[in-house]
């Protein structure tokens, strides 16, 4: 089984988000980039398939050289080989198009993407890839087992879960639950050393097209001061929620 995990580099979840003075882009000053958490759940499951079922695991990232440290980390976690598609990932359409071209060439059995990246929250790349490549697709995937050509998955739905069956090739949108948070792998020294010599191939894409354009960014308006209510005066809270906030 040949697996591709698509990985994007996103600001660490603890980051405070600021935009550049012209409001045109993210101010990356002081921001540490990490593997998108949804992708990391997927990567961990892929490495499980490698260890348990002998899968070969590749990773791909669309981005400029600045994304290579997180790609090396993914290799240290256990992926065998990496592709960097050398372009700025302007929108989900461009990213999906770039990845789909590589996927068609390599004939993967399973493509794992995060259900969304936690930066631009597009939640479209896995669905676009599945459509471009003609693969089946399961989103918000919280469980996946593979037996030969047959895949059994669970997906989170509003207010519950579904069990699904399909056959390979398959794209999934991974999220928490696919593996437990406690099962996420921290690279050990041996992994880090071997990652240095694992292949990281750079691909120059051609004719990619974004379908959307972010014209400007802004931060949420700053919040007014909290109204504190004495714990002995809970009636006041109910009164405020009823009459002032009008939510009761």
């Amino acid at each position, binding site marked *: 089984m040949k697996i591709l995990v698509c990985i994007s580099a996103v600001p660490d979840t603890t980051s405070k988000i600021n935009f550049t003075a012209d409001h045109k882009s993210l101010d990356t000053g002081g921001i540490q980039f990490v593997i998108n958490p949804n992708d990391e759940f997927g990567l961990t499951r892929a490495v499980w398939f490698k260890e348990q079922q002998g899968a070969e695991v590749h990773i791909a990232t669309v981005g400029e050289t600045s994304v290579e440290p997180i790609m090396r980390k993914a290799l240290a976690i256990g992926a065998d080989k990496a592709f960097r598609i050398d372009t700025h990932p302007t929108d989900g359409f461009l990213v999906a198009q770039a990845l789909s071209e590589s996927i068609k060439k390599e004939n993967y059995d399973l493509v794992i993407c995060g259900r969304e990246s936690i930066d631009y929250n597009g939640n479209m790349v896995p669905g676009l890839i599945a459509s471009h490549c003609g693969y089946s697709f399961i989103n918000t995937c919280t469980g996946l087992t593979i037996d030969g050509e047959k895949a059994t998955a669970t997906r989170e739905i509003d207010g519950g879960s579904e069990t699904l069956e399909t056959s390979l090739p398959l794209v999934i949108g991974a999220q928490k639950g696919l593996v437990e948070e*406690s099962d996420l792998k921290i690279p050990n020294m041996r992994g880090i050393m071997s990652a240095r010599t694992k292949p990281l191939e750079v691909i120059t894409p051609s004719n990619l097209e974004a379908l*959307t354009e972010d014209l400007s960014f802004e931060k949420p308006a700053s919040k007014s001061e909290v109204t504190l209510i004495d714990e002995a005066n*809970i009636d006041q809270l109910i009164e405020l929620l009823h009459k002032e906030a009008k939510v009761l």
Partner: protein
Amino acid sequence: MSVLVYLESENKAYKKSAYELASYAIALASQLSTEAIGLVINNDTPKNIGGLSQIISISNESLNTFTAERYASLLSAAFEKSGSQYLVISSSADSKYIGGMIAAQSGSSFIPNVIALPENIEGKTAFKRTVFTNKGFAYTSSKSERCIIGLSKNSFGVHHSNAVPKVEAITLELTDDRVTVTNKATVNGKVTIADADIVVSAGRGLKGPENWHLVEDLAEVLGAATACSKPVSDLGWRPHSEHVGQTGKPVATNLYIAIGISGAIQHLAGINASKVKVVINNDPEAPFFKAADYGIVGDAFTVVPQLIEKLKVFKAQNA
């Protein structure tokens, strides 16, 4: 070039989001001086959704179970057939599943997490959407003529009208689906986070899963859904599906009550789109107080039971 809006239903009942979506589509159509068309699958004409000029109705037994491939190709075909410029879909799990697939099939763009009607920026039609899990906003325009708009929950509101749309039943060819649903498990009788007007959420301050009856009792009085912080789901006190935050679920409710949650930046991002936030925490330095509208500094184990009793009285008086 009209606006097509997919009005989602579940077990023959329209989802609450359908009314908000219709309101948005009608307003968008009015801004563009065109008409709004509703798309309905296996359901009667929605009541109290006026202002739509037309309803396209599709009925087929095999559509009773949602499967993404089939639904995506159906919506894509309906988008094509209606000749609409925009297709408005919700932010439900199902709609997020098929958004990208419809975009690929119909050759249109997709702008998700939209929270407002478009504005003109640099001569372009720009939709305001949330990015960085509510830590920021982007104004995004479509480069392709046709575009799918994913509307964020509770961002536009419901505006009723009584005009009656004309209904046209259409038949579209159904495709097979390579993915089959073998089991569907939903919690009965519980308000889901996706549908809730009020969410009651708790963190490690509750000390253990055995104390969650406080959260559940409070949620019951309020008709609210229950949720939790990331540490609580990581510890296995509550299921992952209740985890609210940047790597969990975003919550956009009218009222969010946080009990014993300190307010890590990832959690605050996840609940930022909620309208009114109440925090109950015994630590006055908890960061959540800076993000909340109302706060009580106090012990959850004394405050919450009192709140439950007093809300019962309030509900009885205001029933």
